[in-house]
């Protein structure tokens, strides 16, 4: 049949025009998209991605990368590569698997989910080490490449818990990379769809390392104690509490991981194959690789999707040809009751004298929109804030995140959205304080403010400002600029600007910086008065044109 006439074409087009999607399914999908859009921070189109986008595919991971990124300011030559457009197929894959998983949570009975996370020890010799041997690197350069590349190790995973106000809290499940034998973390959840009650328990070596539940009146959650034990706390739900609308995203196998890939610039799926699980279950296997800093793909995820129902049966993280992490769905079945009460009263938490488990949970990897008081009381070093913001900037928003390069410490990101796109992001952390102290001598002093701040410029600002702006939720502009600040207390906040500021604008910003502790008590009028009474600062020679 090699002939086809116009009538046949019209008939086929007519058949296409007559196709009608199922209204209920369409409504559910649209509702899902609406919730996805609402949950996503608003961002602009990502420009050409750089290697750092690959490393820091998620907001959380970007924060992690931001903690160490400045350690290699002088090495930016190694860290760029030609850009390419990356589709969001991994996001689509996990969203689709998550949507398929929703059916599991929709029954009338309690659903019991069991996943296992098997952590394998690292391979003795990574291909990266061999590649680094072939390059003529200084010790510092080599250490930096190894450090940044270690973010591909996935020796931690994000997990959510539900807070009393119905919002998610973001935690870090630390997977001990030093173990010489594989170990298993059992992740169990019970969910009662009609009431929204749930229990989630993570257990390893016979010890519960994470717990979260909701009994209809309160939420219950585990908190690590400084002595190493894990305590169970509870909090009565607030008036605006609602249970998660999508339990699969919260309790499903992709929970946590999905947040990694919600940016368009996450590396794409590079290979799709057919396969089977050990029990013969037919699968479609999606491979998603991460180029390392030298452009090689030795690290990748294998997402194994069941052919029968589209849910993920297993996710395997492979490094240097060997599995490092295997997350497997062991069972998902309907049960008549949970073995524990919803308030976890009968769950035995880990005690201080227990053997250390191979994994533990660090709470609150990232806390969005915290108060000034929270920053002051948590930082452990002097923090600063803009006492007043010029008319073109919105009020500062503070985020608190784990300072990965300084274990146990917190990092604070202050973002000010600008009406004209010249957004401001200021980071303050123990890691940056240490790092800038060592490199400031190579920078150029631009301005000294009467409030004791010194403003430094120079260096590969395009590089680190890209990281900071992205971590702050902004799309970096081509003409972005970056500065290092030295505070009167000897700390080193970094200042990334998504555009160019005039000297006058910079001066206003720097002059308005005050110790955050001081702003907690005096009135805003007092502060404004104090700033206005400051004597003028001093620009270094050649930088004193206010409109420059």
């Amino acid at each position, binding site marked *: 049949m090699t002939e086809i006439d116009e009538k046949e074409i019209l008939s*086929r087009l007519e058949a296409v025009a*007559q196709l009608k999607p*199922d209204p209920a399914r369409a409504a559910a999908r649209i509702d899902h*998209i609406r919730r996805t859009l609402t949950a996503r921070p608003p961002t602009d189109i990502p420009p050409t991605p750089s290697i750092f986008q690959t490393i820091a595919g998620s907001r959380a991971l970007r924060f992690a990368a931001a903690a160490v990124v400045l350690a290699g300011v002088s090495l930016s030559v190694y860290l760029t590569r030609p850009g390419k457009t990356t589709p969001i197929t991994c996001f689509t894959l996990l969203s689709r698997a998550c949507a398929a998983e929703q059916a599991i949570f929709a029954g009338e009975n309690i659903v019991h989910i069991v996943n296992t996370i098997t952590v394998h020890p690292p391979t003795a010799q990574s291909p990266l080490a061999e590649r680094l041997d072939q390059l003529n690197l200084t010790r510092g350069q080599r250490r930096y490449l190894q450090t940044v590349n270690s973010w591909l190790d996935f020796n931690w995973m994000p997990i959510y818990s539900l807070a009393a106000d119905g919002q998610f809290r973001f935690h870090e499940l630390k997977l001990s990379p030093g173990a010489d034998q594989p170990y298993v973390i059992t992740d169990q959840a019970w969910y009662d769809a009609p009431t929204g009650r749930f229990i989630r328990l993570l257990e390893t070596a016979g010890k519960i390392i994470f717990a979260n539940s909701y009994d209809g009146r309160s939420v219950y959650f585990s908190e690590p104690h400084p002595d190493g034990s894990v305590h169970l706390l509870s909090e009565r739900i607030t008036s605006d509490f609602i249970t998660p609308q999508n339990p699969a995203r919260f309790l499903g196998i992709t929970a946590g991981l999905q947040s990694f890939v919600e940016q368009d610039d996450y590396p794409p799926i590079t290979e799709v194959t057919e396969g089977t699980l050990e029990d013969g279950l037919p699968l479609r296997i999606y491979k998603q690789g991460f180029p390392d800093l030298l452009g090689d793909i030795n690290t990748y995820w294998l997402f194994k999707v069941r052919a029968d129902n589209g849910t993920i049966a297993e996710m395997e993280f492979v490094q240097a040809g060997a599995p490092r992490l295997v997350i497997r769905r062991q069972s998902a079945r309907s049960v008549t009751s949970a073995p524990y009460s919803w308030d976890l009263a009968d769950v035995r938490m880990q005690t201080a004298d227990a053997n250390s488990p191979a994994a533990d949970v660090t709470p609150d990897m990232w806390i969005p929109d915290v108060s000034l008081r929270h920053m002051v009381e948590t930082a452990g070093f002097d923090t600063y804030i803009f006492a007043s913001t010029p008319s073109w900037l919105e009020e500062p928003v503070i985020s608190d995140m784990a300072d990965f390069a300084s274990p146990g410490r917190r990092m604070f990101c202050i973002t000010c959205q600008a009406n004209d796109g010249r957004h401001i992001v200021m980071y303050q952390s123990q890691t940056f304080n240490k790092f800038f102290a060592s490199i400031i001598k190579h920078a150029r002093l631009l301005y000294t403010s009467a409030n004791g701040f010194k403003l430094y410029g120079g260096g590969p600002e395009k590089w680190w400002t890209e990281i900071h702006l992205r971590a702050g939720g902004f799309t970096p502009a081509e003409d972005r600029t970056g500065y290092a600040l030295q505070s009167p207390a000897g700390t080193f906040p970094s200042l990334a600007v998504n555009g160019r500021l005039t000297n006058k604008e910079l001066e206003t910003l720097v002059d308005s910086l005050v110790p955050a502790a001081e702003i907690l008590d005096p009135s805003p009028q007092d502060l404004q008065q104090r700033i206005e009474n400051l004597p003028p600062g001093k620009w270094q020679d050649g930088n004193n044109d206010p409109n420059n």
Partner: protein
Amino acid sequence: MRERQKKTLDLLQSCGTPLYAMLTRLTLSENDAGDLMQELFIRLSQSKGLDKAKDPIAYARRAAVNLAFEWRRKRKARFEPLGHHCMPAQNQPSALGTVIQKEQLEQVLDAAAKLKGLAREVIVMHYIERQSYEQIAGRLGKNPAHIRSVSAKALARIRVLLRGQLRRQDAEE
């Protein structure tokens, strides 16, 4: 940017259902339509073009059509039966009939994906969205006679493309 997010959510509210229907028709799969719909709105929420668009609905519609045909061009050949939720309105007495019809519809849509901008736009608007030539001309700022001519040439081009495709299939058999 928050304003754009709000605009995107408003768009989803006002024209989400027709866009989903159109994507279903152009992909012949509700699953793929759902994925593309999500991709479309995420792209829109990040698109500066939406800020500048005089008619955001037309902008979203055009983006959806481009996305669907881009998907159609990039995807690998595959065999996938129609989902039971996405059956043609006309009666299909057998599963084989459904499969055969799906293949035929795929052929014509794949051919349409190879058309250039205006020709493809007119085919979608006239034959799939069932707009009159006058309506299309009004929306695109063209003369109705010109649109009619573009449509006729586009159909002829689809016919040529299908003929070539069928000859290749015959040769393979």
